[in-house]
Each structure stands twice: as structure tokens, then as C-alpha cells.
């Protein structure tokens, strides 16, 4: 090659400025790199000569961080309190301050499971019978009226539902019968004379008699069924239900 001057050489060097990266590659690389963040480490600005930006950004991060942390703590405390209240409410009986919370939890749970209404009513009745048994066992006479009142309300709802939808499966009636028997066995409480309870007894016994009449029975069971019918006619529904449960065994 011919001799070249320094100026020509520098001019040739400057032609290398035409070397540029592919535009699409550069754009793609930028988006890929900037998507790789480490948020947990980002608290300090890096460029020393951007002091104002650094100051503002640092404060912004401190405030955001502190706010999020405070929010997280508040949320955790609230959650803890809610869980605590709901947990404690499970130990309550009618008349206690947190008893409505217990009822609310039961209703929510039943709705979440998607239980049929009649099953929900039976489950609630069983819970209230348990409450009454606890109250009776602990001798909490102050809570007794509330416990009985809760049972009355449940029994009334259940009787109404059965009246509205009399065609229930045999198992449901059997479950109600067992609940009523349990209720009758709670010491110190006799609710059989309660009109709502009596009404429920009547409905259940009537249904069970109809069911047993369609079933093939032994001679002994047939005798008991006749006895049940007699008790039913004499409006001794609780006694009739006792006999029905004997046949079912």
C-alpha cells in the first residue's frame, strides 16, 4: 500500500464509526436486560453525579418500603385477630358475647361446603344441642334460657322447612330423629312440651311411620310399628320416636 499521512489514517479510522449494532438486536437486548431486576437489593441509587435523583429516589423507596411494611404488619395483625376471635368463638355458648361470631362461622362454613339447607339446619340443631348439653353440664343457669331459645329457633326453622318440603330422604329424617333423641337426653332439660319441638317430633314421626309402612318388617317390628301408631294417635310423639329408633336399629 502507498504511504499514507496521519490525517488519512485518522480519516480511515473514523470510517469505523459506521460500525453499529443491529437495531432489532439492541432493542431486544435492552428489554431483556431491564426485565432482569433484583427488587430486594434496590435501595440505593448508583450514579454518583445524580445526587438530586438519588435523594428523591431514596426517600421514595424508604416511604414506599415503610408504608408497605406497615401495611403488611397491620394486615398480619388483623388476620391474627380475626383467626383468634373465630377460634375463641368456637368455645362459646348461647348468651356469650362472641356467640354470634360462632354462628356466623358455622353459616359461612356450611355455605362454602354447599350443603343442602335441610342438612345445614340439622347440623346447626346438633351444634345448639351440644351447646345446651355444655351449659347444662357446667350448671350455667344464666346461659340456659339463651341456649333453649336458640334451639327453639332452630327447631322452628327445621319444622317449617320440612313442612314446605315434606319429601326428604329417609336418612335426613333419621338424622333429625337422632338429634331429637339427643336433645331429649340432655339432663335437666325437657323440651318435649315445647310447641315447636313437639311439632318437629310430630313431623318426623309421621314421616317415619309412612316410611316403615313401605318397608318389609319382621313380626316383632310390625308389633312395634303398631305401638308407634298408637303413641302417635295419643300425641306422644317423643315416645313414638323412641320406639321408631328401636325398629331402625
Amino acid at each position, binding site marked *: *500500500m*502507498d*504511504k*499514507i499521512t*496521519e490525517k488519512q*489514517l*485518522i480519516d*480511515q*479510522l*473514523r*470510517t*469505523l*464509526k*459506521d*460500525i*453499529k*449494532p*443491529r*437495531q432489532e*438486536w*439492541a432493542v431486544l*437486548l*435492552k428489554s431483556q*436486560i*431491564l426485565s*432482569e*431486576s*433484583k*427488587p430486594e*437489593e*434496590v*435501595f*440505593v*441509587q*448508583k*450514579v*454518583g*453525579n*445524580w445526587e438530586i*435523583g438519588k435523594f428523591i*429516589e431514596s426517600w*421514595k*423507596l424508604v416511604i414506599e418500603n415503610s408504608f408497605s411494611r406497615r401495611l403488611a404488619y397491620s394486615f398480619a395483625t388483623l388476620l391474627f385477630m380475626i383467626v383468634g376471635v373465630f377460634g375463641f368463638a368456637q368455645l362459646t355458648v348461647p348468651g356469650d358475647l362472641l356467640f354470634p361470631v360462632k354462628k356466623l362461622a358455622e353459616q359461612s362454613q356450611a355455605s362454602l361446603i354447599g350443603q343442602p339447607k335441610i342438612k345445614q339446619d340439622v347440623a346447626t340443631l346438633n351444634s345448639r344441642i351440644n351447646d345446651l348439653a355444655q351449659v347444662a353440664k357446667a350448671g350455667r343457669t344464666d346461659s340456659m334460657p339463651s341456649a333453649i331459645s336458640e334451639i327453639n329457633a332452630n327447631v322452628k326453622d327445621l319444622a317449617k322447612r320440612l313442612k314446605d318440603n315434606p319429601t326428604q330422604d329417609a336418612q335426613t329424617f333419621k338424622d333429625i330423629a337422632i338429634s331429637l333423641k339427643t336433645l331429649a337426653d340432655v339432663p335437666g332439660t325437657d323440651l318435649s312440651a315445647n310447641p315447636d319441638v313437639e311439632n318437629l317430633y310430630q313431623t318426623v314421626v309421621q314421616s317415619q311411620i309412612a316410611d316403615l309402612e313401605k318397608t318389609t318388617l319382621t313380626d316383632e317390628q310390625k308389633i312395634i310399628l303398631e305401638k308407634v301408631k298408637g303413641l302417635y294417635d295419643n300425641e306422644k310423639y317423643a315416645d313414638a320416636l323412641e320406639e321408631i329408633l328401636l325398629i331402625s336399629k
Partner: protein
Amino acid sequence: MDSLNEQFGQIYDQYIAKIYRFVFLKVSSQEVAEDITSKVFLKGWEAFQSPKTEIKNPGAFLYQIARNAVVDHYREKGRAKVVSVDASPQIADPGTSAQDKAILNADIGVIKLAIQKLKKEHQDIIIWHYLDDMPINDIAQLVGKPAGTVRVMLHRGLKDLKDIIQES
């Protein structure tokens, strides 16, 4: 967070072409240059986010990563730095005709090869000063040498480059 992305985005836009060119002039192909440049900016972004690293001069920081990345590249691959003249560079100049581009490519190929035959320290200084228009004082800071020494190195580098081109 957004602000940090934005800041690095600006640095990226400012240096992507310079770093790519710096790397491209030292390696054999566009693919290798893109690969190394990607690593340079990824490392730069990681350091930029880390609270342990303080970056006062983003340009100098990226060039330093690029220099090390090129050294690592040759060390890993065990390749000689001399490359084929056939490795023609990518030129982003859509306005140039095919014939002009071919001539330009030929010239660039020759000068690129000549640069690669220079000492590494001369390569860097020539690229920074004549292609990136970096002032002597900035280069002096970057290489950690007095400005006078950098001037002498630049002069010697140019002389060596001229000799290499004339010999070819």
C-alpha cells in the same frame, strides 16, 4: 425501581453502539461481538442494581467490563487474536449503495485487521480517542495513567497502525 430502570436505560442507549463497536473491533464476528456486548450490559445492570457497587462513571465502568470480557473470551476459547480478513463487519448505513458499501466494507476490514494487530493498550486508546471522541484526560483516568503518557501511547499506536497498514 422504575427510575433505576430508566437511568440504566439511558446509559444503555448512550453506550450500546460504543461498547458494541469497541468489542467488535477486537473479535472475529458480529455474533461474538453481540454475545460479549450482551454480557457486558448484563453485568453492568447487575452491578447497577447492587447496593454494594457505586458507579461514578458508567461509561468507564462498562468499558472496563468490556475489556475484561474480551480478555475472558480469548482466554476461554484459546483463540489467537488474529482474525481472517474475510470477516467483514456489519455496517448500519442504509443510505449507502451496494458498491459503496462493498468498498467501505473492504476499507473497514483492512483497518479492523490492522487495529487487531496493535498492542491491546494501543487498540483501546485509539478506539476511544478517534472513534468515541473521548478526551485524552478521560482516557488517562480510564487507564489510570498520566495524560502525557496517554498522548505518547496514542502517537505510538498511530505510528504502529500506519506501519501495519502500509505493510499489508
